[in-house]
Each structure stands twice: as structure tokens, then as C-alpha cells.
């Protein structure tokens, strides 16, 4: 079976590499590969060279060998802290609703391997082998990013990282298999299935209790003190025993010398072996766990993250007649409502409003400034970044292009329809945040007059939807003009070339945005310069309105221009998952 597994892995890797090399014949992938390679070079290899420079050597000489050398207390406590974090994650994994990806066999594996005369343990080992490429890549990247000039140090950290990732993967598969046994068995076998969970959770509880006691008796002053306290708590005999396997797994990451590294890695290997044996011996419920994983996978289309939609009372029934744009907005609204719980959104708004009112009424400047600052940052993020993240528009609907293309709707209306709901959604969020920021602005900028603060706030309120729709227009224009460059839905192409494409796309999008914003900035700015000297900051509002109108005109013009682009768009030009 080992030979067959290696054959599958090698053939898959070779064919994937061939495919990626072949697609470099296309200029877009070649350009992406050049940019991606340059990015990688400057991010990693440039960093390696930088680390070897005299300046870097001198800087490191001032530090200790450990990456956490600046904080001696932390450096000593690092393996303990890492072990504790690992223990917490191990305990949580029994309660979390997630299942191991190791048990998710692909369609081809299901067809060829599950029907073959292969034991469950061999199948598990096959999946483990298949997952190695990703984990090795992760370990290599981590090793490269270690701030050290020593190749040995990078290699040792890389190996330690790989061992940690492998062990965690095996442990999590064991958890999923045992959970399946818990669900399937009854009586004594079921009780036996609970034993590993009980051991880990008890261990976590013991450590938590020891920490709480230590912190309660002598509250630490500062980070180093806290680290020392944690290290001290871990020295208690019982805690040392329960933490040992977890600390053993992370200790090689922090071993600064070969004499420390060799025994550390041996201990980590022993833990990995023990976990592997436990996982393989927990394979009684293998088929139940694999069935559950297959059901989860079948519920999501290829290349998608598991998005679950739930039907709820719509609240808005689509009228049988009206503008097609509103039909698109309704469609996108339904999508949003079926992912997010409206009650939670209402609850969040109520909590935010209550917090705002309380902080304003009680005059507590600290919390008010905190909430106001947060709201201002959130508004800024919403206006400037959310259009890139919220993709409930053509970027997602390219997946349904085959259906959209059969609809008798003007192309420009399709594009405008796609922009409506994300604009409304982001604007609503931004307006809420701006309103809170304005209400609490007295604590943020106390030197600015009340009227000026309100005028600036209203100006941003006016400008927000225009800026949002302008960005969405650019993103959708790019999606229509270069559909092959746009990741479809939530899937992401892999490889250096695909990464380079995304970098080029991001740069191009920002450039287009700047071009689109210049006329609006000029119009609004000129008005402001002319009017502000007579009427003061109040003129921010009409200046924003002028800029918003200019942007709106640009958006209409761009969407009309995109009409023929949409008409000419070939569904085969859209990028498909690998």
C-alpha cells in the first residue's frame, strides 16, 4: 500500500507541476509567475540575505540565541507556554464541532481505494502520507521566516515544525475517529471511547486551576513576571507530568543548541509515535467517520468553503414586475440573510447603540474614546477595505454566468444590479459606525468645535456610499474585463503564478480607483477651497455631495461602458478550480 500511496502522491505532484508549467505559455500566468517569484524572492530570500548582513549580525549579537531573546522571562517560559496552548487546543478539539480533514477522502480515493482490499489503517496512513506535501511546505516557510542567520537553526526549526504539524494532524484524526465511536457505540465501549477525552480535559483543568491559583496568590507585575509565574506553576509535580507530552512537542522549536535539540526531538518523536499508535487503534469507527466526512463534502460544491444557507422568513418578496436591478439586489440580499442571522445583527446594533448612549450619558471619557476610536476605525475599514472583501456581486456570480447569460436583461443593468446590495450593506454598516464615532467625537477630538465635527461626520456619511460603489464598480469591471484573473467565488488558484496574478490585480484595482477618484476629489476640493473661507467647515457637506455626484456619474458611465464587455464575456474565460 505504501508503494501505491507514493505512486499516487508522486504522479499527482508531477502532473500538477506539469500543468502549472504548461499554463505559463499564457501571458497572464507568465506575468503572474514573474511578479510572484519576485515577491517570494524579496519576502523570503531577500530576508535571508538581509539576515546575513553585518548590520543584522550586529543586531543579533545584542540578543540571545532564542527568537524571544529580548524578553528573558518569556524565552524561558516559551516551551511551557507553547505546551499549555497545545494542551488547551487538544482539550478544545473534543468540544469543537470540527472534524479532521484526514478522513475526507476525495471522490477518486473513495472510488479507487475504499473499494480496494486495503485495511483501514493502511487507508489512514495513505491519507497521512498525502497530507505531507502541504505540511512540509508550511514547515519550510516557517523555517525560512525564523530570524536567524544559521542554516542549521532554520533546518532544525523546520523539522520541529513539521513534526508538530504531523502530530497535531494525527491527533485530530484520532479525535474525529473517537468522536464517531462515541456516537456509534453504547454501554462499556461507549464509556471507553470517552476515556481519552476525559484524560485531556482533566489535564487541561488541572493546569488551568494551577495557573489560576498562582495568579491569585501573587498577581504578576508585567509580562516577564507573568511568564515566570507560568513557568513556576509548570514545575509542580502533577502539572509537569500532564504537560510533559505537550511541552515535549514544542521544545525542539526553542532548543538553541544541538545538545539540547537532539534529546528534545527524540522526545517529540516518542510523543508522535504514541499518538500515531492511539489514532490507528481508534479505527473501529473508521467507516462512520469517513461517511460523515463524505456527507459534509457532498454538501459543498467543489472548490468551496462549507457555506450553509438556511431558509428563513424572507421579509421581502420579489415583486412580479419592476426594474431588473432590484431583482439582483433582492437575490444578493437573500444570500446574505441566509448566511447571517438577522437577530444577531439586530442584537449587535442594539448593544452598540446602548454602549454609545451609556458612554455619552455617563461621560466616561476612557470607554467613550475607546468605542469612538473603534467605530472610526471600523467605518474607515468598511469604506476603504470592505468592497474588496464583500464579494456578493459579479465576482461571485461569475460562477452562475451560464444562467445569467440566458436572461433578457441589459448588460449594464446586470452590472448595476450586482452593485446595489453590497453597496447598501457596506454603507449601512459604515453609517452606523460613523454615527457612533460622531456621537463620541467629543472625546476623540475635543479641540474641534461641535459643529465642525458634525459637519465632517455628515460629509463622510454623504461620501461613504459613493466611495463604496466606486470601489465595487472597479472590482466588478476588473472581474468582467479579466475574468480569468479573478478567483471564482471563494475558490483560489494555487501556485506562484496565481499569487503573482493576485498581486498585479490588486495593484491595477488600486490604480483604477485613484483614477476614478481624481475628478471627484478635484470637483469637491475646488468647491471647498472657494466656499470654506466664507462659510467655514459647514461647506464640507456640499463639497462631499459634489464629489459624491461626480462619482455617481462616473459609476453610471462605467457600468454603461461595461455592458458590451459583459455581452462579449465568454464563459470559458472564467477561471475554473484546479
Amino acid at each position, binding site marked *: 500500500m505504501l508503494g501505491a500511496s507514493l505512486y499516487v502522491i508522486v504522479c499527482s505532484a508531477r502532473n500538477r507541476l506539469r500543468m502549472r508549467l504548461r499554463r505559463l505559455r499564457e501571458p497572464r500566468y507568465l506575468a503572474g509567475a514573474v511578479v510572484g517569484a519576485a515577491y517570494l524572492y524579496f519576502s523570503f530570500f531577500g530576508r535571508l540575505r538581509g539576515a546575513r548582513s553585518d548590520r543584522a549580525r550586529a543586531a543579533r549579537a545584542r540578543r540571545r540565541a532564542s527568537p524571544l531573546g529580548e524578553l528573558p522571562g518569556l524565552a524561558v517560559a516559551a516551551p511551557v507556554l507553547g505546551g499549555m496552548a497545545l494542551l488547551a487546543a487538544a482539550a478544545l478539539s473534543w468540544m469543537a464541532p470540527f472534524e479532521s480533514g484526514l478522513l475526507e477522502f476525495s471522490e477518486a480515493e473513495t472510488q479507487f481505494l475504499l473499494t480496494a482490499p486495503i485495511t483501514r489503517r493502511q487507508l489512514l496512513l495513505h491519507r497521512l502520507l498525502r497530507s505531507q506535501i502541504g505540511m512540509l511546505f508550511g514547515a519550510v516557510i516557517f523555517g525560512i521566516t525564523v530570524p536567524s542567520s544559521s542554516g542549521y537553526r532554520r533546518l532544525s526549526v523546520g523539522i520541529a515544525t513539521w513534526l508538530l504539524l504531523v502530530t497535531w494532524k494525527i491527533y485530530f484524526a484520532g479525535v474525529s475517529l473517537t468522536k464517531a465511536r462515541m456516537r456509534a457505540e453504547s454501554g462499556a465501549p461507549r464509556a471507553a471511547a470517552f476515556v481519552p477525552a476525559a484524560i485531556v480535559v482533566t489535564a487541561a483543568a488541572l493546569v488551568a486551576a494551577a495557573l489560576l491559583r498562582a495568579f491569585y496568590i501573587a498577581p504578576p507585575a508585567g509580562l516577564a513576571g507573568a511568564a515566570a509565574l507560568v513557568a513556576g506553576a509548570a514545575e509542580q509535580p502533577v502539572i509537569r507530568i500532564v504537560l510533559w507530552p505537550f511541552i515535549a512537542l514544542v521544545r525542539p522549536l526553542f532548543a538553541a543548541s544541538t545538545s539540547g535539540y537532539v534529546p528534545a526531538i527524540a522526545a517529540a518523536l516518542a510523543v508522535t509515535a504514541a499518538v500515531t499508535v492511539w489514532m490507528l487503534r481508534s479505527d473501529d469507527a473508521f467507516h462512520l467517520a469517513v461517511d460523515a466526512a463524505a456527507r459534509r463534502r457532498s454538501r459543498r460544491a467543489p472548490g468551496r468553503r462549507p457555506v450553509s444557507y438556511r*431558509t428563513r422568513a424572507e421579509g421581502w418578496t*420579489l415583486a412580479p414586475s419592476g426594474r431588473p436591478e432590484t431583482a439582483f439586489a433582492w437575490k444578493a440580499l437573500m444570500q446574505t440573510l441566509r448566511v447571517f442571522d438577522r437577530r444577531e445583527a439586530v442584537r449587535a446594533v442594539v448593544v452598540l447603540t446602548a454602549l454609545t448612549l451609556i458612554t455619552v450619558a455617563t461621560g466616561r471619557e476612557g470607554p467613550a474614546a475607546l468605542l469612538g476610536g473603534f467605530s472610526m476605525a471600523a467605518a474607515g475599514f468598511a469604506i476603504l477595505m470592505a468592497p474588496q472583501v464583500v464579494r456578493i456581486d459579479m465576482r461571485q456570480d461569475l460562477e452562475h454566468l451560464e*444562467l445569467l447569460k440566458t436572461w*433578457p436583461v441589459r448588460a449594464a443593468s446586470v452590472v448595476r444590479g450586482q452593485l446595489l446590495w453590497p453597496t447598501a450593506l457596506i454603507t449601512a454598516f459604515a453609517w452606523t459606525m460613523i454615527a457612533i464615532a460622531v456621537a463620541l467625537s467629543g472625546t476623540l477630538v475635543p479641540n474641534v468645535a461641535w459643529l465642525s465635527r458634525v459637519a465632517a461626520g455628515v460629509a463622510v456619511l454623504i461620501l461613504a456610499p459613493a466611495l463604496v460603489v466606486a470601489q465595487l464598480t472597479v472590482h466588478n469591471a476588473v472581474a468582467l474585463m479579466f475574468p480569468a484573473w479573478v478567483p471564482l467565488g471563494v475558490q483560489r488558484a494555487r501556485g506562484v503564478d496565481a499569487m503573482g496574478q493576485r498581486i498585479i490585480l490588486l495593484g491595477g484595482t488600486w490604480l483604477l480607483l485613484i483614477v476614478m477618484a481624481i475628478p471627484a476629489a478635484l470637483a469637491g476640493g475646488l468647491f471647498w477651497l472657494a466656499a470654506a473661507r466664507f462659510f467655514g467647515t459647514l461647506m464640507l457637506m456640499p463639497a462631499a455631495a459634489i464629489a459624491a455626484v461626480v462619482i455617481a456619474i462616473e459609476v453610471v458611465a462605467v457600468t454603461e461602458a461595461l455592458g458590451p464587455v459583459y455581452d462579449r464575456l465568454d*464563459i470559458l474565460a472564467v477561471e475554473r478550480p484546479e
Partner: protein
Amino acid sequence: MAIAVEHLARTYSSDTGSLTAVADLSFEVRGGEIVGLIGPNGAGKTTTLRALAGILRPTSGRVFIDGHDIVADPLEAKRRLAFMPDEPHLFEYLTVTEHLRLVARLFGVADIDRRSAALLEELELRGKERSLPGELSRGMRQKVVIACGLVRDATTLLFDEPLTGLDPLGIRRMRETIVARGRAGAAILLSSHLLHLVEEICTRVIIMDRGQKIADGTFEELRSRVDLAEAGSNLEQIFLSVTGNNRAGQP
């Protein structure tokens, strides 16, 4: 003429070269005709139907739906057209009823509630009105796609493997539905590998191979062709003979 195809060609380009899926294809379908489009895998049937539906732009040639060019006048052409693809493409976040309402809105269908109720009954989707596509079987999703196509009074119906995923009762219902629409005057172009279905419900057959039309006519016309006289009396024998596979299965 409900469907008129003039010298249609479609070429796919990729990093490994180019492939002509359809070459110089011409045919017509009148209102009330049910035409079967058959051919081996890779013959160009789906490409032809997608070009007719306005999904793929022809590399050359023209397609008219009720006299409207699908490229030059797409809105009027698409208003008269219903395309039922072999793979059910649905919005995973809209319910069955919402799909029908969306189609009704976009195609300007009046009286959608009455129409959708009748269709859901006809296609045995009653009780699934508030289901999301993810909660439906493949056959059910196929029925939703067909319901979306039939909910409007399209004069031209394009079916690509309409019976895929349907159960025996569903297949019979679908057959009856297609025939009824044809009798009501719709021009129907249907692609299928189920030759007995094509033989049973189609009034004419177009056989494609390697992107080209190699035969076109009623069964009588095909049987009476000199080169096919020896082929046999049923569509399967004619199909195998025309596509050069008549020796398949022979000792």
C-alpha cells in the same frame, strides 16, 4: 422560423491549441417541431445549444430566434427562449419558489403564482417550494431548472439531456410535457443520448459528428436515404451507420 442557424462555428482556444467544436452548422426548426439533436460524445451538441441560448458567442455564423439575432438583438431573442441545461445551475441560497419568482420578474411573466403552482404540481415539486437546492436531489434540481424554463411562454425550448437524473415516473412526465409543449406550437430542440426517447417524441432528427451536421430529416427521410438503406429500421442503427460505428458489436 422559430430557430434559424446559419453557418454556425465555434472554436475553443486553450494553451494546448484550438479545437473546432462546431463547424459550418446550418439548420432550421419550425414552431411545433420537436427536433432531436444527437451525436457521439464531443460531437458539438452542447456547444450548439449553448450558442443558441446566448451563453457562448459563435466564432462565426448567425443564430436567429423568432427572427432576432442572438448576438445583435440578444434581449428579444432571449425573451422567446428557454434553455434547460444538463447540469442544473441554481442559486444555492434561493428556494424553489424564489427561483420561479426571479425568472418571472426577469422575463416579465404575469400571474406567476398560478403558473408556478400548476408547474410544481406537474413536475411533482409540490411540498418543496421552500427548499434550497442543497436540500434537493439531483433529479429534483433538474426539475426546478425545467420549471424555470417552462414557467414562461417561450416559443423556443432548448433541452440538453433533459432526462438526466429523473426517476422513471419523472421521465414519463417529462416526455409528456415536452410533447405537449410541441403540440402547443413551441419549437423544441432536444439533445439526448437516449435514442429511443428521441425516436418516440421527435418529429425530426439532426445527427452531428465532430462538429458537423451529417444527417438531418424525419425518420422516414433518413430510412429512405440510399446510403442508409442497409442500416436498419430504427434510429440506433441509423445513428451507428451514419457515425461510422456500425461495425461496433459485430463479430
